[in-house]
């Protein structure tokens, strides 16, 4: 009894601790390259958490798209700038204590708020239901029926991103 009651909690505990640690590292380390790498690690853990919440497709996307595409993009850009100077430069803005104070007080509120949390009504996509037709399929069906418009728009957004990247970054 204890085990299958404890095990998920332990799992979660591990993930949580590591993720928080990683995020803190990301925003504190001096070298941008390092923080990208820590981010990579973080993304893997997030993906893990997704699996844990049986959203395997999302986990995959997280790895492929985020880790695979976005982070690489970040790396490219970082290579562009002068790391030497970056390593000596000041990391934080002068007013960082204020910022932290504000952040801290906000999270205080958030916690105050979310332990009042009451979850909404449950829908028909129970774990069993998703297990029945695979997660990917379930997602896909929704995406191409009800959310077709959203899907198209997402496409357009990416198009705009491409155009923008070209317009802004290309030589002429």
């Amino acid at each position: 009894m204890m085990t299958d009651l404890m095990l998920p909690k332990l799992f979660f505990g591990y993930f949580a601790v590591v993720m928080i640690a990683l995020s803190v590292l990301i925003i504190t380390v001096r070298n941008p390259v390092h923080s990208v790498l820590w981010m990579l690690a973080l993304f893997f853990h997030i993906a893990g958490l997704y699996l844990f919440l049986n959203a395997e497709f999302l986990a995959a996307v997280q790895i492929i798209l985020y880790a695979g595409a976005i982070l690489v993009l970040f790396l490219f850009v970082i290579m562009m700038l002068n790391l030497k100077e970056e390593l000596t430069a000041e990391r934080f803005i002068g007013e960082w204590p204020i910022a932290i104070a504000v952040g801290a007080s906000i999270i205080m509120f958030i916690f105050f708020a979310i332990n009042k949390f009451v979850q909404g009504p449950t829908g028909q996509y129970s774990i069993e239901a998703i297990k029945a037709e695979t997660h990917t399929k379930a997602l896909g069906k929704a995406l191409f029926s009800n959310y077709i418009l959203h899907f198209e728009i997402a496409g357009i957004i990416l198009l705009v991103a491409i155009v923008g990247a070209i317009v802004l970054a290309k030589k002429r």
Partner: protein
Amino acid sequence: MMNIVIPDLRPVTPEIIITLSATALLMLELIFKNKGIFALIGISTAAAVLYAMPMSYGETFFAEGTAMFISDNYSAYFKLIFMISLVLSILISVRYIQRQKAEYGEYYSLLLFAAAGMMLMASARDLILLYLGLELMALSTYILAGIKRHDIKSNEAAIKYFLLGAFSSAMLLYGISLLYGLTATTDLYKIAEHLKATEVTATLLLSMALIAVAFLFKIAAAPFHMWAPDVYEGAPTSITAFMSVGPKAAGFAVIGRVFYIGFENIQTDWTAIFIGVAILTIAVGNILALVQTNIKRMLAYSSIAHAGYMLIGIIPGTQESMSAMMVYMLIYAFMNIGAFSIVILLEKGDEIKDYEGLAKSHPLIAALMLVFMFSLTGIPPTAGFIGKFNIFMAAINAGYTWLVVIAVIFSAISAYYYLRIVMNMYMKEMKEEIIIHPSISLNAAIVLTVLMVFVIGIIPSIVIG
């Protein structure tokens, strides 16, 4: 056994038209070298959209029996405003972007994409769709703001706008996620139903606050306004004109929908927020505008102040006040873009002192600027007065007299900085020769705006009621 329901596309026709033509422009750029044609296409697209609008009324995209996209009077009116600002921006852009060495075909298609995004925002009744529309608009505007990519100011504007925009949309998402958690849905109507059924929790308030912040950022209301002056100053003036109207209008559109439908049951809470924000916005906008030396910054602050006035339209939440707010938006579109078009008309018209002695060298232009300035101040018989009058009347009718008193006092103060321009034009001597760049399209824009400013001022019945 895959049963995909192909939903009814009719209501989305305008959006489809505009996106298609935007995409088309991207390809046409390879064919046509003369960019004038793009402007033409853009305008005709707008016309087509307006033409398609009436026949597109209705709702669509049924997920579990609820609509996600709704095309009604409300959205139609805002789409009208978007189209007007789009057309005017295109008109004032044509020659200007040549002068600014920023003449790319993408310019126009991005404008169209942005417009598409706004239209989606205006029509969305599903938070996901709303978010996507917002991002579509935002991303296009980021690019447009930075499109003068050889100009450091333009880059700076873009990066500031982009980072803060991303920051705010993160907050929006967090709010949405909490709301989703509370209600298990993203459809505004369903959210409303569910919230009515359950009692108010702190979490709900939190998510509401987060969403409010994101939207208030979009309409540049204090204290989320600080990006506006910098971005307006740095961005190409034509884009500034566009940004000062389009995204603002879109922001108001979504505020109207989300808060009136979604958060109906906690109206008292968010009204309180908006009252505070409105007062702060009016005060900050007007007071800071007093001390500006750059006219684009001044107009930025003035547009912040105007956002404050429009918020007064949101607060009472009556039918009357909402329509008043929309009318104000429309009028504001004309007078503000009009003012910017004068700025564009001048070779160098960014600094307020550039206007000294304009009345001597170019009386007509000075007169036009005068009209726009007085309209922004809200002096009859210009449209600006009708707008203010309308909003104030609605607010007082809903019992917010004290709020209106504050507003009118500040609008009187605002006269000071608008009159500074007039003063420079009419009562100071010319320092150096003033060069102007008239062009058919630009003149058309100016004539159109000034005409509307007067027509609405004298025959308001065409916009109200």
